[in-house]
């Protein structure tokens, strides 16, 4: 198993005919992801890649195909609107890839999702991939993953790939590789993801890739210490980041002396989670503490 979806989950893509949407939809299809529909207003009735029906609205797509999950590739100004639409149409899982979404738009979306029991991943994230189910909801490269027992949570994109690649090369496949996104307000946070991995019996070890800003890693450390028996290792990016500067991700900022890499490392280590000094040390560290 893995988290959030199975090979049976029916997936639709909002913005499937756009530049990014069509590019990544092809890659998702090529991997074997169960994509049943696409949505682009004004393109209803068309077919994507000769096999995926396109609808004008998410509601139409859900009614015709029974889609349960949506992956959003819509420009920033319309991204929150797309999340509302997916939730309103009954999708219980929404993955928003879009980067640059205004933070207050996401603040507005959150209670609407909570009332409807909808899980949001992102925005500004690479989504997730379940190699064992050939399910990819997002933009992660498929050639670096492999099925296996390791779960991975990250706030980053390419840094995640770096570590996933190292895991796969070391023969450590993955249940789910999840990028939760680099924005301050995101749907699924570190803690939510940890709980999901904790409930997944197939995940036998866990890698957490954090970065400066906020206190999600600290809170995750408390959860791991209190609840989890499986080996967990971590890496935190941004030790050299100057305070008060936004390091690309809107959420990656040390403010008022809080959210530093040093604080996070301390919290993680005091919870018994080893923190790698370099990305290349993550896998050896995991192998060291993982008694199989």
């Amino acid at each position, binding site marked *: 198993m893995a988290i959030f979806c199975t090979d049976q989950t029916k997936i639709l893509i909002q913005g499937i005919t756009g530049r990014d949407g069509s590019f*990544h939809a092809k*890659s998702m299809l090529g991997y074997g992801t169960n994509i049943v529909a696409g949505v682009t207003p004004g393109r209803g009735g068309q077919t994507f890649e000769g096999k995926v029906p396109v609808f004008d609205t998410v509601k139409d797509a859900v009614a015709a195909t029974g889609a349960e999950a949506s992956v959003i590739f819509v420009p*920033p*100004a319309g991204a929150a609107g797309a999340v509302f639409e997916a939730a309103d149409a009954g999708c219980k899982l929404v993955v928003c890839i879009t980067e*640059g*979404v*205004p*933070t*207050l*738009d*996401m*603040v*507005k979306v*959150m*209670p609407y999702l909570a009332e409807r029991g909808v899980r949001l991943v992102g925005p500004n994230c690479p989504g997730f991939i379940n190699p064992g189910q050939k399910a990819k909801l997002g*933009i*992660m*490269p498929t*050639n*670096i993953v492999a099925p296996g027992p390791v779960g991975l949570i*990250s706030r*980053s*994109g*390419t*840094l*995640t*790939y770096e570590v996933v690649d190292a895991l796969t090369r070391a023969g450590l496949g993955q249940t789910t590789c999840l990028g939760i996104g*680099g924005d*301050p*307000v995101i749907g699924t*946070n570190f803690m939510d993801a940890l709980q999901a991995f904790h409930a997944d019996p197939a995940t036998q070890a866990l890698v957490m*890739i954090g*970065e*400066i800003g*906020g*206190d*999600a890693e600290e*809170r995750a450390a408390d959860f791991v210490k209190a609840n989890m028996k499986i080996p967990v290792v971590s*890496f935190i*990016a*941004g*030790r*050299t*980041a*100057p305070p008060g*500067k*936004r*390091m*690309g*991700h*809107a*959420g*990656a900022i040390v403010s*008022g*002396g809080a959210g530093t*890499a040093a604080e996070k490392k301390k919290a993680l280590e005091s919870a018994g989670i080893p923190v790698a*000094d*370099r*990305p*290349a040390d993550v896998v050896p560290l995991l192998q060291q503490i993982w008694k199989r």
Partner: protein
Amino acid sequence: MNIHEYQAKDLFRDAGLTVPPGGIATTVEEALSLARGLGLPVMVKSQVLAGGRGKAGGVKFCKTEDDVRTHAGNILGMDIKGHTVRKVLVTPAETIAAEFYLGMLVDRASRRVLLMASAEGGVEIEKVAVEKPEAILKHAIDPRFGLLDHEAMAVALRLDPDVKRARQLADAMQKLYKAFLAADASLAEINPFIFTDQGVGKAIDAKINLDDNALFRHPGFAALRDLDEENPSERMAREADLSFVKLDGNVGCLVNGAGLAMATMDLVQYYGGRPANFLDIGGSSNPDKVVNALRIILGDPNVEVILFNIFGGITRCDDVARGIIAATERMEIKVPIVVRLTGTNEAEARELLAKTDLVGAATMDEAVQKALELAGK
């Protein structure tokens, strides 16, 4: 994007908050004429995008015109945490009977706008948060309903039991929320919100940070950007749509992805070097973007070596290599360049690089070590 106190005060006024009048001066003469117009005593306040202005001597009380001359003269041109003061706000000095802190920010944990309020006004709130966290009252605002009257009043009465003053505080909180939403802020603070001897509540300081992601729907805010406050290389990067932060080392870094870019800087430091910058070049192999990035980095005379760290992922490495080669051929570059490319088609990419002067590397660690060996050679 951060804006000045006087600009934040304008946004506060638009939301209906009571803010003392004032004007901006760039010379002592202008400061004097403003002081005469407003009537003495006045405050002369440096306008720089840095905290701790008061502590640095950048905020002064002026009883006489001579005081204005002296203090405006000292403050204009003063350096506050690396920022040169180019303008001062001249505003009436208020009598202060009581002062409070009122602030709002986007709270990651509750995923809401969080109201923070404290009777410990006028001091650094970060300090209060550490030393006396119980002195800060918090309320997470439900975005569906806003800050309701009774919610604001409940916080206000805990700040000040005097009901007349509490009503003014509650009203100020609601207007602060209105300003926060109207500006798409990420942070808004009144520190302090004061009551005068006559019991009139006023916001005598103002701070607003704007959400960069929302600037597209506030075209008017472009005019608020103080280009003098921006590092020239950071300005070039912003105009080229690159995410860049200048640092003071000698290893210029071009990386795809923010997390990997931070990890690359960290690795440079791990091996005893110092990164010259943070730069996320994104997933594109477009030579124009690479040229822009190289121009920005090479504009820094400290840079002695360039380090590309690209995790190809879906982007094909040979495409990226072609982009880097095309870009480096279009400009004269005197410092060595180390390129680490991995992912799809990395073998082809390495073959392409082998035909150039660029130094190839297979891993992040190897690339950083090679860059540090080459720095300064």
